[in-house]
Each structure stands twice: as C-alpha cells, then as structure tokens.
C-alpha cells in the first residue's frame, strides 16, 4: 500500500473477514467465567468498607458464621495468621513507595470499597445474610480526596511511610533546556487542567472461580481478566507458592480495557479460601463493586506550558502533573502517569525541548491503573488543548499552527529521544480536512446559528505509542483431530483475535481458516504471554506467528515427505493438505496427524521497538445555548495503523476507543464527595455513552507500514480513546469561543457549559 491510497470503505476490502466469534456471542452461546460454575461450587462474597478512611476496631464474625448455609467468614487477621504475603506492583519505578497491602484490610480501611472480609456460603442469599450479620466496628476518620490537598503539610497521611502522601516523583527531559527556551519565547500558552477520573465499565464484571487440588498442591483460577501471565507472579507471591502452582484460564471475556490487567486482591484471596475450605469457590463482582473497587483510569492534574516563537514554532513544552494513585499502588498503577505517557508527550509535533515532572499521590480513593490508552490520552489531550489555546490567544490559525509544527521528515527523534520511524501527518491532515468537509464548516455553522445553535469545529492529532510488555510467543500445533491450534500469548477480551490472528496465519500458510482453532489465555497450554496492553497484540504477536508459521510449513512438508518417501521440495502446501508434485497425491492434515503424529512449531518475537500509530481527527458539535447541552454531530478522521490485517476489525477497535474517549470528554466522571463516598457508583449516576450520543464515525485508513516489525502493523486498540477527548473538547471550546471561554475540564456537562456561557 502506498501513501496516496486511503481506505474509506473497510467493508468492501477483501481483508475484512467478519468475526467468527460473533456467531456464538450474538446467539448467547459465549462461555464466560460465571457460565462455568459447577454443581457444588460455593459462593464467595466480599464485604467492603463503607468508609473512605476508618480504623477497624473489632470484627465479630460469630453471628455471620451462625447464618445457615454459611461455610466460612474470613478477615484480614486470618490472612495474617495464614502467613499470606502482600500484593505487589510489577512496575519498576525508582523511588516508588509500595505500601504493604494484604488482600483483606487488617487494621485500617483506605477507600470506600476496600475489601474487609470474605464470606463463603452455599448460596448468594446466605452470603448476603451473613454480610448483614457481620459486625465490624469502625472508627471513621477524615478522608483525603483531592491529591492537591493531600500534599499539604497538615494533611493526614494515607500511609505513614509516605510523607506528604507522595508515592513517587518522576522526571523526564531537560528542564534547563526548557527554561532557556521559555526565556527566549515570544509567546507562552498555558493551561491548568484536570484529566477526569473514569471507570472502564467492562460489560462483564470481574469474576473468579478458584479450585485447589491438594493432591498436586495446585490452584486453578478461571477468571475474567487479561495479562494473566504477567500478573501470575503477583498472585504467587501472595500465596507464597511458585508460579507453576497456579494455572490461570480466561474463557470468553466481556471487555477489560486495562482494568482487568491487574492482580486484584480477590484473586489470591479466592485461591487461598478455596484451599482453606477445600471446595471450589466463585466470586462475581456486581456493578457497584466494579465502580467502587475496580481500578479507575486517568485522574491527574496538569499544569502545562508551551513556548512558541514569533512565527508560531514550538520551542518547548513544560509539564507538571499530580497523579492521583488512589489508596494503594495497583499492579501497573504508577505507569499510567509516568512511563506510559512519556513516549507520546508532545504528540505528533516537533518540539525541541521538553520536560516532565510528575508526582504520584495517595488519596482515600479506589486505586488508579492503566485504562485504554494509559497516559497517551493525557499526553495528547494536553498538547492539543495547548495548541488551540495558543492559536486563539496569539492569533494563529489552529490548523496552520499544527501543520507548521509537524516533523519535516521521518524517522523523527523527539525531545525525549524516542525515534518515530514512520508517519505522514501532513497527508493525514490534508485527508482529514477533505474527509470532514472543513471547507463547508462556515456554512454549516451559519445554518446552526439560524436554528439558534452554536457550532464548533475541533481538529486534533493523536500520537499513539504502541508496544506494551516486550516479547511474545506463538505456537502452531497439529493436533490428533487434524486441526491446527494457534496458541498466542497475547489475549483478546473482545478484540477479535480469534478471527484476525487465524486469518493472518491461514493466509500466511495458504490453508483454510477452518483448519485452525484459536487458543489463548490459558497457562496450561500457553506457557507465556504479554497480554494486549499497549495495543501490542499484532505488532508483538504477529512476527511470532509469522515465525511459527514458517517453521510449521517446513515441519508439515518434511512430515509429509517422510510419509510419501519424497524430498521436501517435491511437496507443496495446498488448501487441502500437502500435495506431492510428481504423483499428484494429497495428504490431508488429519492423515498427517494420524500417521506422522502431533507436532508443534514455535515462534518468538523479542523486538522492543515502539510503533507509532497516528491520526488526525475532526469533530463538529452543536451547543444548545439555552441549556448547554452538546450534540456531537460529526466525527471523522484519517488514521495510520500501518499495514492492516483486517480493516473491519481495526475499524471496530477505533470505534470502540472513540466511544470511550467521547464518553470521557462529554459524560463520564467518577466522583467522590468530601467524605470519600463514591457518588457516581451506579449507572444511574455514571453516564456512559449510548448509541444516540454518538454520530456515525467516518475514519479513513492510510497504510504507512512501520519498520518496527516485519508485518508493518501498528496497534489500533487504544487509538480511539487517545484521539477523541481533545478532538471533542476542541470543538466544544471552539463553539464557546464567542463567550470568551478558553478551557473547560472534561466532562463537558450541560451545566458546566451553561455556567461558562453565563459567567459574569
């Protein structure tokens, strides 16, 4: 594919195979963890703190234990007695304070939703009765919610070993060079912003089924999670066993978006309880538990400054961020505001000097961790908002200002030293402007005005930095039944790998799609894996699959050659199996499996290179000035995800990400009151976007292959969520410009907009 070609009709593209897994999902035949409950399983219920901050004076479990059908009531003291280890953080950040945390709180609770007790019963109703009977004597204490207040000298401490409630300080870049640039600058644009706390809201809540086999001293957890290979050691550390003593299996999963990539306290807790009781247990979070104790995303406060010369050229970017970590350090929590945004800082632009200073702060709120995009949305939101502010304040055209500051050529090395190998942002911009009919905007704006509406146009780029954990494996196994198992260490929890990965391998080998079975997320048959985090699946697993396929082809040919008493070169792989040229004889895969036996080819990709998906998005909104209500009317863009394997699935990923990014911009907001009570704890108060909140998305694809992997693919999974917030907010602020509004924090709720318009 060349740069001059843009794909606008993904459906018509021959690579756009429809999702094989949808057949069972749409028929209600998906098998999720809770569907795998077996007769005799006991029900586990987690009792959670109703307080944001309190001392646990005393827990009396006797009345709860006396409830009929209740098998056990465990508290933190039981875990201490059993000698369980603390939860850990797998992110190496220097100077990070990781407070000791057991799966159940012992002496103190630190956020509303903090697990305090585990009840195991024969029925959920009995467990709920026991939860009501459980007597917990709390001594409520003042709670810290605002991370700015948390840093005050007189603020109470969430953890006594973290002075000023600070978990870490992270620095990147060259502050001296930045200071010099600011001293020389003609213009300085500035912003104070809050990147709002949001919930991932996976449709399927977290669920775990735990079984312990005493004959092997072995735990099997079936669960709705991702990144299982990466967090298994964290569970093993709590249980104080070897990794191999735990198998993790994820059946069909209903979404994750990062919030399921972490080792929740419930995992080790359930495993330990299953062993202690000697029965299989199942725990399913309800929606309230998901909102209160699932990890949240984003939540940081940033002061950003952009230095420009007289012509508008960017000279430097200075970023100071306070990141709210919540009450505990979650598995990957500190990464979301530090190492994750770093490669995307400054977005697509060429900015000679950058500096970043981040402080991670504890508060009495649910832990924060990576959520779709993790840091990249924050980095791009910052620069794209700053550019619009600069354009308006200093009289530049916002589009021209962007174009002027794009890198002149690729590879482009940014101020933090990352090499962006490929990209064509000018081309993307030109296409996006045409695609969105920006020329016609003024006319549409005038029509809106006639109807009493304010119309705004938002243009923004995004730069995604896709990589995630380094290294991935893939295996192809010819099985007895003649099917080929494709096992991959990456993991789909809805992305469609079952289709796209088989499609890729089938096409590579020239075998039919139906010859394959897809295997993932099962430590028994997939020995290692890096999950999907960082939009890494195809960039990381693709080359591993390609290598496995190349080896598999050789194995097939040589096995067939042996059977046919022919040389390998006389054999060729055809759709029905292996064909022997000289005789025309064909050996099917099942014949091969029967006669030559089962065999396996392995491929591994150890590349640690980032790839850099990018795009230019354009949104048009209309505001009802009497109510402040925003309608998102148009949303389009031109994106580059390198070579596409399945354009339809890539588009689906982008659409899903856009919905979440638009949700963050317009609707979603996790809110605590001053006492630390979560007041957006149900779908009655936490607004997620619905179909009628969203316009049709018109995203065109331009395929500039990356050199970061032999397939040329770039990650498409997070991009929408990285692109949408700034695009939508720029459009909203543009519509409000006549009222002198220069910035609003997300979500842009009707009341916020109404207030901004009526500020006196």
């Amino acid at each position: 594919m060349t740069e001059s070609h843009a794909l606008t009709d993904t459906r018509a593209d021959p690579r756009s195979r429809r999702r094989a897994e949808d057949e069972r999902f749409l028929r209600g035949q998906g098998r999720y963890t809770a569907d795998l409950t077996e007769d005799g399983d006991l029900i586990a219920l987690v009792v959670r703190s109703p307080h944001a901050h309190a001392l646990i004076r005393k827990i009396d479990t006797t009345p709860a234990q006396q409830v009929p059908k209740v098998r056990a009531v465990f508290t933190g003291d039981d875990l201490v007695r059993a000698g369980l280890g603390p939860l850990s953080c797998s992110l190496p950040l220097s100077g990070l304070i990781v407070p000791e945390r057991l799966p159940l709180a012992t002496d103190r609770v630190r956020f509303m939703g903090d697990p305090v007790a585990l009840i195991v019963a024969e029925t959920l109703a009995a467990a709920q009765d026991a939860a009501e009977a459980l007597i917990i004597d709390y001594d409520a204490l003042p709670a810290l919610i605002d991370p700015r207040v948390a840093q005050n000298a007189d603020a109470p401490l969430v953890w006594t070993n973290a002075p000023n409630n600070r978990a870490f300080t992270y620095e990147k870049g060259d502050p001296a060079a930045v200071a010099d640039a600011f001293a020389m600058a003609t213009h300085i644009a500035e912003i104070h912003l809050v990147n709002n706390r949001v919930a991932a809201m996976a449709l399927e809540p977290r669920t775990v089924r735990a079984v312990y086999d005493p004959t092997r001293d072995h735990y099997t957890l079936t669960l709705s999670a991702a990144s299982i290979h990466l967090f298994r050691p964290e569970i093993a550390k709590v249980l104080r066993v070897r990794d191999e003593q735990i198998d993790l299996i994820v059946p069909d999963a209903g979404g994750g978006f990062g919030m399921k990539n972490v080792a929740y306290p419930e995992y080790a807790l359930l495993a330990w309880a299953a062993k202690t009781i000697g029965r299989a247990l199942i725990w399913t979070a309800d929606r309230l538990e998901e909102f209160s104790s699932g990890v949240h995303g984003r939540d940081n406060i940033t002061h950003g400054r952009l230095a420009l010369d007289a012509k508008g050229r960017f000279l430097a970017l200075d970023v100071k961020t306070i990141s709210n970590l919540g009450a505990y350090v979650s598995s990957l929590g500190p990464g979301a505001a530090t190492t994750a945004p770093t490669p995307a800082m400054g977005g697509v632009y060429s900015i000679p000097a950058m500096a970043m200073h981040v402080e991670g702060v504890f508060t009495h709120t649910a832990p924060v961790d990576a959520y779709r995009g993790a840091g990249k949305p924050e980095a791009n939101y910052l620069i794209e908002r700053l550019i619009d502010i600069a354009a308006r304040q200093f009289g530049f055209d916002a589009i021209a200002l962007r174009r002027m500051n794009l890198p002149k050529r690729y590879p482009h090395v940014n101020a933090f030293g990352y090499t962006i190998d490929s990209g064509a942002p000018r081309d993307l911009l030109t296409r996006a402007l045409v695609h969105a009919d920006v020329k016609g905007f003024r006319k549409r704006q005038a029509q809106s005005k006639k109807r009493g509406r304010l119309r705004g146009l938002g243009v923004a780029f995004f730069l995604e930095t896709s990589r995630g954990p380094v290294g991935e494996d893939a295996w192809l196994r010819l099985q007895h039944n003649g099917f080929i198992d494709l096992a991959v260490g990456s993991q789909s929890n809805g992305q469609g790998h079952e289709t796209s990965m088989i499609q890729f391998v089938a096409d590579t080998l020239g075998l039919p799609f139906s010859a394959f079975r897809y295997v993932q997320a099962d430590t028994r048959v997939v020995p290692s894996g890096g999950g999907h985090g960082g939009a890494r699946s195809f960039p990381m697993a693709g080359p591993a699959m390609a290598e496995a396929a190349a080896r598999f082809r050789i194995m097939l040919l040589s096995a067939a050659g042996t059977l046919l008493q022919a040389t390998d070169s006389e054999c060729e792989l055809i759709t029905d199996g292996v064909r022997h040229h000289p005789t025309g004889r064909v050996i099917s895969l099942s014949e091969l499996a029967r006669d030559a036996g089962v065999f396996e080819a392995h491929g591994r990709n150890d590349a640690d290179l980032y790839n850099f998906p990018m795009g230019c998005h354009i949104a048009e909104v209309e505001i009802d000035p009497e109510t402040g209500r925003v309608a998102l009317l148009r949303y389009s863009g031109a994106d580059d995800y390198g070579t596409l394997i399945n354009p339809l699935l890539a588009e689906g990923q982008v659409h899903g990400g856009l919905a979440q990014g638009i949700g963050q911009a317009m609707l979603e907001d996790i809110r605590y009151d001053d006492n630390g009570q979560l007041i957006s704890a149900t779908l009655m108060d936490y607004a997620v976007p619905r179909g009628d909140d969203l316009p049709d998305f018109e995203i065109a694809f331009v395929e500039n292959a990356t050199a970061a992997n032999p397939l040329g693919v770039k990650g498409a999974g997070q991009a929408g969520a990285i692109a949408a917030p700034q695009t939508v907010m720029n459009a909203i602020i543009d519509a409000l410009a006549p009222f002198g509004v220069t910035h609003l924090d997300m979500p842009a709720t009707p009341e916020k907009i109404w207030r901004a318009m009526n500020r006196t």
Partner: protein
Amino acid sequence: MYAFNYQRPKTVRQAAGLLAKAGGDGKLLAGGQTLLPTMKQRLASPAMLIDLNQVDGMGGIELKGRNLHIGAMTKHADVANSHIVKTAIPGLAALAEGIGDPAVRNRGTIGGSIANNDPAADYPAACLGLGATIVTNKRKIPADEFFTGMFDTALEDGEIITKVIFPVPQKAAYEKFPNPASRYAMVGVFVGKKGSDVRVAVTGAGANGVFRLPEFEAALKTRFNAKSLDGLSVPADGLNGDIHASPDYRAHLIGVMAKRAVNKALGK
C-alpha cells in the same frame, strides 16, 4: 434479594384481599422495573409479592367522551404506540415514548410509575399537568391530591390503582431534559391547556417530587404563548441538587423547558 412468597390473583378484589392479609408486608408487583431492582439490592423486603399481571380489567386504553381512560397495568410502550392516545393527547404518547429504554417500556406500567412517584419520573408530570384522576379500588383521587412527596402518594394501605383518567386537553406537550446517566427527567415540564384552565407541572427538579407552577399558569392563562413566560423565573430554593445539576441550573432549565413545552403544544 430476600425470600418472599408469591401470589398471582385474577381479580382486583382478590389482589386487595391478599394485600390486606399480608398486612404491611405485602407488595403489588406491576412491571417490576423499580420494585425488582430494589428487592435485588435488598432495599425492599416484602414477605409477599402480589403480581397484578393476570388481574382482569386493569389494562386497556379507552376514550370515553372527553376523557381518556388508561388501565393501571398498561405498559409504557402501549401508551406510546396507541392510536387513541396519539390522537387524543399526543403529548402523553410522546412522554411514554421517552421513558427509559425499550425493555423498560415493554414492562413498566403507568400504575407502577405513579404509585412509585419517583421525583424524576415522567408520568407524574402528565397527571398533574392534565389534571388527571387516579382511580383506585376504593376511590377517585385528583392528581393534585395524589402526589404527596418524594416516593410518597395519597395511596393508603391496601389501595390499588386500577386506572388513570385524563381529561382530553386542547393543547398539551411535555418537554424533558434527561439526566445524561439515568435518562430519567433532570427537569421535565408538562403543559396542558383545557378551556381557560392551564396547568404547568414540573418533574425531576423538586425535592418533594412533582409540583405545579401557579405563576407560569397565570401568565399562560392570559395568553397561551411562550413569550408570556418571559421574565418569569423559578427560585432555586427547594430544588434538587446533585452531581448532574445544581438547584440553580435546574431552576433555569424549568424556564427553558416550560417555554419549549408551550411551543410544542402550539405545534411550533
């Protein structure tokens, strides 16, 4: 959910008998759209559920002279799609069409909605804005006396709503500003004009549930036009405030929604 007993009577009389027998521990089950979620969360714990879904004579939509009769068990979807309602009081059909989502509209009932009197529910605004009469197994209650406070009604123990009678207005319309999360009314205003009588009822905003706006009504009586409302405002005192809307903002929205409802009623 706690354990409960379940009964499915065939007549209103049987239902009333079961309700009386259960004492304070019985609950009527209509569409279950509010009651069942509350029971699942253990916020309600009736010992006996008396399911009204097979009770005779509690459904149906009928125009009798200048009055529209809607049985208490009539589903929102049936009101929304009814040719009779669309012709007689199109604003009422439109209101029903705007409740919740298709699943809710196909189970939730008008009787359940007004018995529940959620301060953000839509039907109470229509009842008050049209001067409806709520008919029970014991008496007829004018809407003005029915809605007594948040989740509170004039219904007495053992009383069952059997139907709602709406006088057919000359003009009527409902304008709703939905809560972005729940899609219940953050502010909803129902305006009805019948002869010289004009009613303006507000839901979603009042700390005590649905209420009328006498000042707005007086202005519209003089001239039924949105302009008549210019300069009128509603004090924020006593209005709801939450993470979605402050009392100030709700007060402002009432004015905007009232004008839009008037325009809609006038076919503008």
